[in-house]
């Protein structure tokens, strides 16, 4: 493994409250002290004018393998992650078959290693077969490498099962991630229920369907003492419920995706299925509440819900097209352009939500930080570059994004995983004279 010197960058590491100009050194796949007496680097990354931070971690992606490789594979998804500056992903278990056994979790880990792109961590199912009836073998999933549990794609509707999951998972201190949706309230829904769905004649999914499940699960987390994580929060009331739960000391965390802080349900007027996601795009009031939740720390994690679908699937009529959009390659610029640049979050606050908070959520002890000894996963960001998102340039196998053609700021410039430069836009990596 090469010794790497990342030199002259603005180092932002919220895990150590660092925001300063300096060098980061990497050796043997680990971060090493910058004053550790190194006089030689095999690779020098000139990071002047750039931001150097721990590798970004996305706790919510769908990689579709096994079963739907036409949409994405673990290799293409992990490559898309790198292109977006993401060095680790936690992938959801709603594959075919679902990740509900130790062998299935090990398959994901193995494919991730083979791909040698971003780190890939499996999230195991809460219930066997994601049927919402019986607990999956949570302990065996942990043995297979699972870092959390969820039935995402669908909620754990059965309150009794959710209670047991929150209780039982305490023995591993892993989090239960919940897709909050009362299914009985969203039958036939393709978008947020409200003025826009009425105007367009499209089936609606009321905000209350999310709020009610969030309220129920926070109460269940309270009585069990388990760790509850609210996935892709999208409504004003749900944000308020999480805020209130935290205030009462309940172990609840929440994540938000860029589409829920940049887009509203008015976009559906185009009838474009790239605006169809679940939870759906909500109203301007909800968007404001999500941003407020990010600002005051109620929502401590930014992620994507990267949901790739092959073009032929998204080209169908709106009610037949699947829910979801890709996000790995747009997470960083959306965060920069719509949270940092308008002043909602500082760089340090945003990077905290993309690194150490995400690492803590899924118990990655050696990631999300640039402290000496940590895994050498580093993202170098060009904060000032302006560029146009072009879906046909994505490394992801699928191009279903609502942001195609958008002009944005900020881009991953160099991405280092496990002490190796695995992605670069070119130009700033140079072999040092000594090693050449």
């Amino acid at each position, binding site marked *: 493994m090469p010794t790497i010197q990342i030199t002259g960058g603005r180092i932002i590491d919220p895990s150590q409250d660092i925001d300063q100009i300096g060098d980061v050194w990497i050796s043997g796949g680990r971060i090493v002290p910058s004053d550790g007496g190194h006089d030689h680097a095999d690779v020098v990354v000139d990071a002047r004018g750039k931001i150097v931070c721990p590798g970004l971690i996305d706790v919510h992606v769908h990689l579709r393998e096994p079963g739907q490789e036409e949409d994405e594979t673990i290799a293409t998804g992990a490559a898309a992650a790198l292109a977006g500056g993401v060095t680790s992903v936690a992938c959801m278990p709603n594959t075919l078959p679902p990740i509900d056994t130790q062998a299935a979790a090990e398959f994901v880990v193995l494919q991730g290693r083979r791909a040698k792109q971003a780190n890939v961590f499996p999230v195991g199912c809460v219930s066997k077969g994601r049927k919402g009836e019986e607990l999956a073998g949570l302990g065996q999933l942990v043995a297979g490498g699972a870092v959390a549990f969820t039935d995402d794609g669908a909620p754990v509707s059965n309150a009794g099962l959710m209670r047991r999951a929150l209780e039982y998972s305490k023995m591993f201190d892993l989090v239960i991630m919940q897709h909050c949706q009362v299914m009985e309230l969203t039958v036939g829904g393709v978008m947020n229920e409200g003025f826009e769905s009425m105007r367009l004649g*499209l089936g609606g999914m009321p905000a209350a369907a999310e709020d009610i499940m969030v309220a129920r699960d926070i109460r269940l987390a309270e009585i069990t003492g388990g760790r509850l994580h609210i996935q892709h929060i999208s409504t004003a009331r749900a944000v308020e419920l999480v805020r209130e739960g935290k205030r009462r000391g309940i172990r609840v965390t929440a994540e938000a995706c860029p589409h829920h802080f940049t887009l509203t349900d008015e976009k559906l007027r185009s*009838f474009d299925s790239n605006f169809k996601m679940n939870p759906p795009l909500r109203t301007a009031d909800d968007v404001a509440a999500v941003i407020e939740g990010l600002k005051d720390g109620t929502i401590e994690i930014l992620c994507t819900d990267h949901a790739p679908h092959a073009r032929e699937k998204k080209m169908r*009529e709106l009610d037949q097209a699947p829910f979801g959009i890709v996000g790995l390659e747009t997470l960083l610029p959306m965060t920069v352009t719509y949270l940092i640049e308008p002043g909602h979050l500082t760089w340090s606050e945003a990077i905290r939500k993309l690194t150490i908070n995400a690492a803590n959520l899924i118990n990655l002890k050696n990631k999300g930080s640039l402290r000496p000894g940590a895994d050498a996963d580093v993202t170098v960001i060009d904060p000032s570059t302006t560029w146009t998102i072009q879906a046909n340039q994505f490394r992801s196998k699928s191009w279903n994004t609502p942001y195609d053609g958008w002009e944005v700021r900020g881009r991953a410039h160099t991405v280092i995983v496990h002490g190796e430069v695995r992605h670069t836009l070119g130009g700033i990596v140079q072999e040092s004279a000594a090693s050449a």
Partner: protein
Amino acid sequence: MLGLEDLSREEILAVLDTAESFAEVSRRDRKKVPALLGRIVFNLFFENSTRTRTSFSLAAKRLSADVQDFSASVSSISKGETFIDTAKNIEAMGCDVMVVRHPTPGAPHLLSQHVSSSIINAGDGAHEHPTQGLLDLMTIRQAKGKIEGLTVALLGDISHSRVARSNIWGLLKLGAKVILCGPPTLVPRSMERLGCEVAYRLEDVLPRCDVINVLRIQFERQQGGLFPSVGEYSQFYMMTQDRVRLAKPDLLILAPGPINRGVELTPEVADGKHSAILDQVTNGLAVRMAVLYLLSGKMDARPAGE
């Protein structure tokens, strides 16, 4: 021609005026003009229809177009071909106009991004049915001499009705007051934001109405359980002779059809002196001729090679 929401007041009036002139063609011995001679009109119906499909076919034939019907149930759609690919194939056969009916809101809009033929929305799910909206406007204007200043109630399943949405846009643009009446599960309060009044008691609404448009319960588009029974619905919302007597003496009753006698209105009301149901059908032909004719003008205006 994707919906009345997209049309201006002037454009709507232009279609209505053109339709009036085409109504005369239908009264001639030889009911045919050569306006669309050599043009090909495809009826792409992905949902059942009798009235609208026949009306569009006849309208196209009276303009001397060649008309081809397409039914999803006997097409390659049933073999898995996508809606867009089917339409592209039809366009490759030289189609000039596609008349599209589809159960999904926005399906004609989606198509318009993939083909260059003129597209007429003949009903997309619960979204819009613009030619029905236009023929309703034409029927009201014929009977009342105007639309501005009238109070028009839409009665019944507003939530799932494309006819309601096209009526709302058209009536509001032409200056009518619109009242939406039905059970709260079928008339969302958010509809007030469109500029309409929402009411739940028909008896309160009727005395103020110049026109009432009785809409069908869209059993095929709702999830069920939105009202306890057809019997209970009829008890509160069926137009009966007794209820007609609560209204102004010159009340005009419309119904887009197919009508459910004994559910939405009694036979006496459907066939009574206030009813303009068959005039609507006649006007539908004129409106569709007008729309096809006006779109044909746009076709001629297309630059060569497009």
